């Protein structure tokens, strides 16, 4: 086989990252070298993924790759395999793209830190781990990649170990993350004992017809394992701690990439390995988990007083949207969920980078201490606002397009099944969206607007490299919001189709006809249709908005909107000061965590309950994990 044939691209795309990590360990002393290697490796990874776009997404190929060319023998997959279908490629593209942008950002962001070579090594290990996970065609390799990425993430969480709470956060993450990884390992072992293979495709063919108690327990174990990686409720406190402590560029990876790997694992597990999503009870499980995550975490976010912790909770809330939508088991729902997953990676990446920019310049992310930065960091402010509008679903940004699809999908599901529960999900999603807006208004007021504290008088705009990374993400937020049709047609719909094309997935890997011969019952083929109930065309909408804005502006200018105002402050002094009821201007910033007390007052019992629940003690969180596991096992045994 030619070294440059498409077959090799997936493994290249993983390898360059690990190779880069390796090189930086050895030669990382040189600043130029390590930056060049990191940039080159992440870009090459993205490049190889992008090269697969045409054959996989457009032509519908599935790329199967056997390492060392050890193809299946005697009907058993012995070798290690990579399999890239549209679903894997979707996540692969997303991951590699964001990793590259985070790398661009890191160069200036990390310039003041010690031990930067180690940072890049771990960074590339983390990226490589996630890439390996989403491209792998082998359950045990998925576990290995999970281990790599977990330990890289733990180490990076504690990277700034002088920062308050960094080691503690890393320790918590380590403990609960290991519980998750152990669950995945245990589940893998149990499945291997049952079906004697570790190849995803072959397992997908063998497991669904032969469910035993052991496989059901294995399902629950794997499920909880991947939930830990996606930080779904009840694992959400870890994310908050980890994000709060980790450097911003790592938060981008943890939130935008690592959680996606969890979602990817859940999709592979429930749609492929067990093909259990046709069951109403399984749909209920996923949708319920998603809804609880989105609601609980958005309320938790409202109560936060740290910029990055707030973003961390939002990140799980958005993952809740994704899971609820993916769990609907309709093509439209999966498409919507994946679209939102992509958007989440983009806007959350942007927001974390903006938080990082604030931290970089002021040295704090405490909402109570910041304020008025918009005059000092105007570009960061605009970029942050784009991210905030996107996550709150303000049209025409991308969050709106995908949330709109999620509402449609859940409501359609509710109407189709006649189940009022799905309707509650729609309502929950809509209300959560407004709560998201509320907490970003809080951040906007507390960090970027309001009054500038004395000690930040000399704050400057962040360096160009950091703004560039944010700018790329902001542009992508806008573009994916303006072209929802293109995004769904070329990215999410092929991926959603792939989710239902289990037979093709198996046959591609194991040889034509294998699925039909091995499976006791062929998977119930879902009708894959993307008929949506409404119409949303952002371009025409934006045109309208522009025309209207123009019209309003013209009228406003005719009305001397701005002409008289341009006067230099007079000797009188007080005229351009803020109005303080006649008093001289004093520093009084309204902001911080308790901004929406009118809301919190009504929910005070809920919030005090939550406050007591989130004790911050790792023993409690481990207990939650065990309880969740127990519940999952019981539920799996009952319904599967």
């Amino acid at each position, binding site marked *: 086989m030619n070294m440059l044939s498409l077959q090799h691209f997936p493994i290249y795309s993983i390898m360059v990252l690990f190779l880069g990590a390796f090189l930086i360990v050895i030669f990382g002393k040189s600043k130029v070298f390590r930056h060049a290697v990191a940039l080159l490796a992440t870009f090459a990874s993205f490049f190889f993924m992008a090269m697969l776009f045409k054959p996989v997404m457009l032509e519908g190929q599935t790329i199967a790759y056997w390492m060392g060319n050890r193809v299946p023998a005697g009907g058993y997959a012995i070798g290690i395999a990579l399999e890239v279908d549209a679903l894997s490629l979707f996540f692969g593209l997303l991951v590699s793209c964001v990793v590259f942008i985070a790398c661009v950002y890191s160069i200036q962001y990390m310039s003041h830190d010690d031990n930067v070579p180690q940072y890049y090594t771990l960074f590339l290990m983390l990226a490589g781990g996630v890439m390996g996970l989403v491209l792998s065609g082998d359950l045990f390799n998925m576990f290995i990649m999970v281990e790599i990425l977990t330990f890289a993430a733990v180490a990076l969480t504690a990277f700034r170990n002088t920062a308050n709470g960094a080691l503690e956060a890393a320790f918590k993450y380590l403990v609960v993350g290991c519980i998750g990884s152990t669950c995945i390992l245990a589940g893998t072992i149990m499945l291997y004992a049952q079906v004697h293979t570790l190849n995803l495709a072959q397992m997908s063919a063998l497991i669904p017809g032969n469910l035993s108690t052991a496989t059901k327990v294995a399902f629950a174990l794997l499920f909880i394992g991947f939930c830990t990686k996606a930080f779904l409720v009840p694992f959400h406190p870890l994310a908050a701690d980890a994000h709060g402590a980790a450097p911003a560029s790592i938060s981008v990876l943890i939130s935008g990439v690592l959680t996606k790997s969890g979602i990817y694992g859940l999709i592979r597990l429930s749609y492929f390995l067990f093909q259990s999503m046709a069951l109403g009870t399984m749909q209920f499980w996923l949708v319920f988990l998603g809804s609880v995550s989105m609601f609980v975490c958005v309320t938790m976010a409202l109560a936060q007083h740290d910029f990055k912790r707030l973003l961390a909770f939002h990140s799980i809330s958005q993952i809740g949207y994704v899971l609820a939508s993916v769990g609907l088991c309709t093509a439209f729902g999966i498409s919507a969920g994946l679209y939102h997953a992509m958007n989440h990676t983009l806007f959350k990446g942007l927001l974390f980078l903006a938080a990082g920019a604030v931290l970089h310049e002021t040295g704090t992310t405490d909402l109570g201490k910041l304020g008025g930065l918009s005059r000092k960091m105007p570009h960061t402010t605009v970029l942050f606002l784009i991210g905030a509008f996107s996550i709150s679903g303000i049209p025409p940004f991308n969050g709106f397009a995908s949330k709109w699809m999620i509402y449609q999908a859940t409501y359609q599901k509710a109407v189709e099944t006649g189940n009022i529960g799905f309707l509650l999900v729609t309502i929950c999603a809509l209300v959560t969206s407004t709560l998201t807006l509320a907490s970003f208004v809080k951040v906007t007021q507390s960090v970027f607007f309001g009054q500038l504290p004395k000690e930040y008088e000399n704050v400057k705009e962040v360096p160009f490299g950091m703004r560039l990374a944010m700018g790329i993400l902001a542009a992508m937020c806008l573009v994916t919001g303006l072209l929802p049709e293109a995004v769904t047609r070329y990215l999410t719909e092929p991926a959603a189709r792939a989710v239902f094309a289990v037979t093709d997935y198996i046959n591609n890997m194991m040889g034509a006809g294998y699925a039909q011969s091995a499976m006791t019952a062929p998977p119930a083929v879902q009708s894959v249709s993307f008929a949506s109930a409404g119409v949303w065309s952002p371009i025409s909408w934006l045109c309208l908005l522009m025309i209207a804005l123009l019209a309003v502006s013209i009228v406003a200018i005719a*009305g001397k909107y701005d002409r*008289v105002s341009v006067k230099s402050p007079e000797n009188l002094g*007080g*005229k351009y000061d803020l*109005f303080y009821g*006649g*008093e001289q201007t004093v520093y009084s910033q309204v902001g911080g965590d308790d901004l929406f007390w009118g809301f919190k007052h009504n929910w005070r019992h809920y919030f005090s309950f939550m406050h007591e629940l989130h004790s911050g003690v790792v023993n409690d969180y481990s207990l939650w994990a065990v309880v969740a596991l127990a519940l999952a096992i019981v539920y799996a045994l009952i319904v599967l």
Partner: protein
Amino acid sequence: MFKKLIEESTGKSPWLFHINAGSCNGCDIELVSVLTPRYDAERLGFKLAGSPRHADIVVVTGPITAQSLPRVLRSIEQVPEPRCIVTMGSCPQSGNVFRGSYSICGPLSKYVHVDVDVAGCTPKPEAVIDGLALATKILQEKRRAMK
């Protein structure tokens, strides 16, 4: 045409900002009574504004105590042009019974140009409305003089 429209409107929509500069509260109550159903100054477009930035006419009551003077002046400065200043009651004009007190800095006209004085302790609502109507006229004049 647009300019004429604005001029016309300036006379029909004067918003008041009320500053108490140490008043005994008599004038303040009387000013509010102007807006009650009996006298209803809103039919002439008068409205109490919450912030000096929104106001056209500043109504000052009280004898301008030393404590209130800088605050009164600062608030008046913050009113955008064109603006009118109306003193209500005898206190801001002469100091009234407080005249000669160590803590009184009045009259107001020592510090800013006062457009209309409404005398009385307290002035009748009719007098207040008359004074405000006069201030509105002046406001219109000032608007005409702008540019």
